[in-house]
């Protein structure tokens, strides 16, 4: 079953692409911060500053995933059902990781005991690391093609997901998200922590570039060798991968020169381009069958009927602008860097009060110790 390209089915494919892309760009940096936090923090105060740098945002960022899942369920039920049951164990691991991570945000600072903070700190880091790898694996698998038979049923099991290319995809997403997080952290902190974050970003840029180049080339060759191409010419995803590589290269140079804001822009562009490349390579398929082209799920055979798509289009058109506006506003409200408070007496009103006096840390004051290369 096929249909016209200019249709609600295509629009919803694009919208779901936008939702996943938004998720990767936004939660990408908070995964990265979570992964790097134990490596970059010199002490518990640093550790807390890194978590508070993403504190106002992580929850809203995670909703992008929930909405991507819900939109897939509504617009392409067969895709949702086949992918979620097919990726069963991988998704279970992601869910466990996200649960630990969410709990860790809320729990870690609630007790002073060192063992308590270590445990939740580790839970937070692992909870950030696993999804950062597994989303890369999962999306590489989607593009590469899976053992999908009539039904549609994915029959490859967990082993079918751990293909070498998919593992490269996992490494690439891990490195790119870590880089994105390091740049974000350098943008949101001051002093020594900021210097270390910047250094981490400079170190991560080259491996991220190599991993993405390798992933792009290997996936490109695999797709080109298959007899079941998507509707778009292979040049489109290839061009997007090149854009991602250029952005990563530029990001590495910019961060080395201390241009943190611009560098964050480029790592965001790299993630957008990579995600777009994956969706462009898929279209009009949503899950590629490596068994027979006939069994691939497409925006036509996996979709809801017209009535559902129409209703959802109206709802999305009305409410999405509001969501974008207030989420953007949050980033504006919390745009300041987090400064390490001066050591000494006169501290604290309890770690966990929803408020305390954040002004002490999220101050408008200029950073106490500007990095050597900052302008």
């Amino acid at each position: 079953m096929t249909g016209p390209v200019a249709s609600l089915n295509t629009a919803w494919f694009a919208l779901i692409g936008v939702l996943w892309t938004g998720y990767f760009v936004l939660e990408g940096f908070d995964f990265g911060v979570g992964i790097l936090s134990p490596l970059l923090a010199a002490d518990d105060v640093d550790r807390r500053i890194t978590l508070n740098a993403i504190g106002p945002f992580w929850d809203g960022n995670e909703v992008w995933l929930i909405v991507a899942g819900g939109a897939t369920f509504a617009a392409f039920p067969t895709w949702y059902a086949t992918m979620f049951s097919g990726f069963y164990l991988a998704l279970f691991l992601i869910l466990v990781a996200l649960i630990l991570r969410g709990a860790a945000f809320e729990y870690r600072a609630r007790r002073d005991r060192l063992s308590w903070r270590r445990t939740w700190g580790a839970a937070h880091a692992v909870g950030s690391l696993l999804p950062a790898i597994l989303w890369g694996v999962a999306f590489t698998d989607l593009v590469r093609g899976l053992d999908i038979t009539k039904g549609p049923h994915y029959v490859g099991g967990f082993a079918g997901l751990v293909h070498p290319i998919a593992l490269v995809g996992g490494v690439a997403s891990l490195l790119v998200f870590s880089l994105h997080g390091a740049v974000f952290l350098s943008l949101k902190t001051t002093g020594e922590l900021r210097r270390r974050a910047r250094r981490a970003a400079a170190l991560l840029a080259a491996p991220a570039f190599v991993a993405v180049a390798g992933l792009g080339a290997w996936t490109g060759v695999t797709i080109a060798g298959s007899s079941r191409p998507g509707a778009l010419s292979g040049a489109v995803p290839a061009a997007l991968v090149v854009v991602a590589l250029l952005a990563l290269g530029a990001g590495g140079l910019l961060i080395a020169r201390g241009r943190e804001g611009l560098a964050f822009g480029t790592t965001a562009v790299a993630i957008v381009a990579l995600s777009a490349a994956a969706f462009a390579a898929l279209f009009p398929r949503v899950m590629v069958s490596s068994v027979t082209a006939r069994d691939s799920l497409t925006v036509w055979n996996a979709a809801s009927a017209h009535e559902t798509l129409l209703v959802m289009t109206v709802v999305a058109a009305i409410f999405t602008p509001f969501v974008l506006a207030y989420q953007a506003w949050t980033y504006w409200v919390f745009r300041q860097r987090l400064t390490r408070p001066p050591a000494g007496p006169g501290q604290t009103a309890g770690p966990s009060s929803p408020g305390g006096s954040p002004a002490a840390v999220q101050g408008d004051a200029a950073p106490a110790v500007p990095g050597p290369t900052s302008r």
Partner: protein
Amino acid sequence: MTELLDRWQFGVTIVYHFLFVPLTIGLGVLVAWMQTLAYRRKDADWDRLARFFGRLFLINFAMGVVTGIVQEFQFGMNWSNYSIFVGNIFGAPLAMEGLLAFFLESTFLGLWIFGRGRLSERVHLACIWLVAFGSTISALFILAANAWMQHPVGFRIVDHKALLTDIWAVFANSTLWEEFAHTVLAAFVTAAMVVVGVSAWQMLKRRDVRIFARAATLASGFAAVCLVATITTGDMQARLMDEQQPMKMAAAEALYNTASGASFSLLTIGNLSGQPIFQIRVPHLLSLIADLSYDGKVQGINQLQKAEAKKYGPGSYVPVIWLTYWSFRLMVGLGIVMLVVAAWTWWLSRKRSRWRLEDCRRTLWVLVACIVAPFAANTFGWLFTEMGRQPWIVYGLMKTSQAFSPTVGTGSVIGTLAGFTVLYSALGAVDVALMRRAARQSLDPPAGEEGAAGGGSGEEVAGLVY
């Protein structure tokens, strides 16, 4: 086997998720209310209470969010046949829930947590109200999906899939609005009982007695009003259920044979084949509940089984009777107990009362014990309504036995079920311990005097939240 395991997994996930959700919905409203009182009356006590209960609210919130993701994902993971069958209709409210409700509550929660002192007081107050609004309307969307499983409307069946014909019918579903009212009111009750119970504990320990008495007055009055409304909407639901899912009503009552002027059983001890050994019954009450008439006819399980087998083909259409019977009674019983307790507390604590609540120590201990009551009642309510619908997953359209994911092996489900159970138990223990700790802390000092108080250890960093 796989079906049974999938059902256990769903049960574990939803029961666990729904321990956090009602408290989040209700505390959102109560904290917003307290903060409003603080703002409008420039009253430092209400501000301190809002912060105190805000802390409990936050410990809960994160768990509600992350267990909610499991809830959404498992439809596709464990119930792929179901997802394909209902996706056209069921997916829509889920997507709307994310877009309209979850974005709102989580974004403004971040602003509320980190925005104190940064945003103006008025905007900061608006943030918590938006959080409360977001979590309340999230209930509307998820219940639209659930109500459709209880009473499907606005669809046609094409190629073994339910396709949407009328989204207005889905949202105007009579089942939805009664379910929504009942569930949200129960959530308000949950939070109010927690606020009353925690305040009672603080009063027993003679800490900030006058301030916590104010919280107890507010919350017990709110609880009593909401309990009356919860019971009323529950009664309305019973009548609707008698019309839409008569088997569930009969199972709730363990009414095996059709009766006119049916009596309501307060307590039945019997064998599983339905022969009562001992029972206490209130004459005609069941007919009144189900039909609003003294001699109304209520259908029995045996007659309904025959009728449904004739309509849908051979098979058993009877849910697990002991479970529906007892969960229904425990839900109702706990509701009534809470109503009595809340109304009594409010009576004691009102301004012109002859007594002072803080001196009624026995009442205070009862209030502390009552903290668990709403959680138990909520759980029994959901067990009743979901188990009572069996063997259907979508009433009259799809059986649960046809709904699970055919490609997910039994071993995988065992592994994830064990994994979630262990993880949930561990996190549950931590969550309860942290809640207890937060509930036993003293109030923060009034705003502006923070520097003077040595709340935490010297290691704490001023203003870092996480």
